[in-house]
């Protein structure tokens, strides 16, 4: 942006995020397909090893269902299969580089120092054979509060920071207490709750009872420090085009000023 400004070139920016995934208590009202989907939705933090700008890296769960939900979510996370990317059973692979892996490990360390509890994972995954030197990280759940650095910074790995909320306003406050605003997920069987939350959440893409879906012509972009502009939608043409106004007069007479 700095370089573009030197030549007055407009930019769109996508700068990442710390997207919250919010689970209202009614998700556990029944043990059905929807709950199963919500548990998968929680586990989406591990998609692409967490190396996605919209990674749902914070999970905010209603306190009344917290214990049961997190227990089931943890089991789901522990079932993630990690291995050779050519194996069709593999769900996630290795991190992109050793320095990415080092950075993730360094975040887990500071998370623990700040008092976060590591429920699962939290270390490198040493695989065997020719994968032995791969930069594999175990999917990790860290439990803490929203002011911790692991809740505020983009770790860019398969790490989710989880915390509880008391009520609707608390959920919204926690979700919005971040420098970023790219993605967010809201899970509720009550359409009105989901809608009101989505409207109040300062994020450009609010996945409602889903996550990580990117259909064509759904506007995508961030609020706050997540960037400027919207892509994958007709409106992006306005970023790349100029509006020209041709101002034509058909009057043969002067205006009378001079």
């Amino acid at each position, binding site marked *: 942006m*700095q370089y573009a400004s030197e030549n007055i070139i407009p930019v769109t920016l996508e*700068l*990442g*995020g710390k997207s919250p995934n919010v689970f209202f208590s009614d998700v556990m009202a029944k043990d059905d397909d929807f709950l199963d989907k919500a548990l998968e939705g929680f586990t989406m933090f591990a998609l692409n090893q967490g*190396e996605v*700008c919209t990674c749902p890296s914070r999970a905010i769960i209603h306190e009344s269902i917290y214990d049961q939900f997190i227990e089931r979510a943890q089991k789901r996370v522990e079932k993630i299969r990690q291995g050779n990317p050519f194996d069709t059973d593999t769900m996630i692979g290795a991190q992109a*580089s*050793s*320095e*990415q892996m*080092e*950075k993730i490990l*360094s*975040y887990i*360390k*500071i998370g623990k*120092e*700040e008092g976060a509890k590591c429920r699962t994972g939290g270390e490198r995954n040493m695989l065997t054979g020719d994968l032995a030197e791969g930069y594999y990280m175990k999917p990790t759940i860290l439990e803490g509060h929203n*002011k911790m*650095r692991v809740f*505020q*910074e*983009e*770790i*860019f790995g398969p790490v989710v920071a989880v915390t509880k909320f008391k009520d609707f306003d608390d959920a919204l406050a926690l979700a919005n207490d971040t*420098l*970023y605003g790219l993605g967010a997920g809201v899970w509720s069987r009550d359409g009105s709750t989901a809608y009101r939350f989505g409207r109040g959440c300062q994020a450009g893409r609010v996945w409602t009872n889903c996550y990580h879906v990117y259909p064509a012509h759904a506007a995508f972009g961030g609020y706050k*420090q*997540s960037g400027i502009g919207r892509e994958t939608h007709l409106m992006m043409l306005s970023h790349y085009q100029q509006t020209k106004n041709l101002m034509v007069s058909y009057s043969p007479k002067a205006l009378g000023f001079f």
Partner: protein
Amino acid sequence: MEKPLRVLATDAALTLIAKLEQTHGPLMFHQSGGCCDGSAPMCYPRGEFRVGGSDVLLGEIGGTPFYMSAAQFEYWKHTQLIIDVVPGRGGMFSLEGPEGVRFLTRSRLFTDDEVQQLSTEGVAA
């Protein structure tokens, strides 16, 4: 008790800084936030990256000023940064890229005493 430093560097980092300075002249660091290369300290020739009213100067490492965005600093200020070097491909914009290494920020929580000491000083912008 000496006032704690907000940012330090390991010997490996200091050596790398000196080496980069030989090639590029005076340097600067900006702690990046956000995705991909995010959360990594970025090294630029001094003046190349515009810092301003929304950045804070944490200190100097190897004679090189180290900055961070003020908004991000609010969440980091209770931790000390230790700049280290690890092998890697290097960030796309950071000067150490071609060297096959990457600067990495490690952190340590300040003790209560240190927090107390630091709260009595302002941090330069």
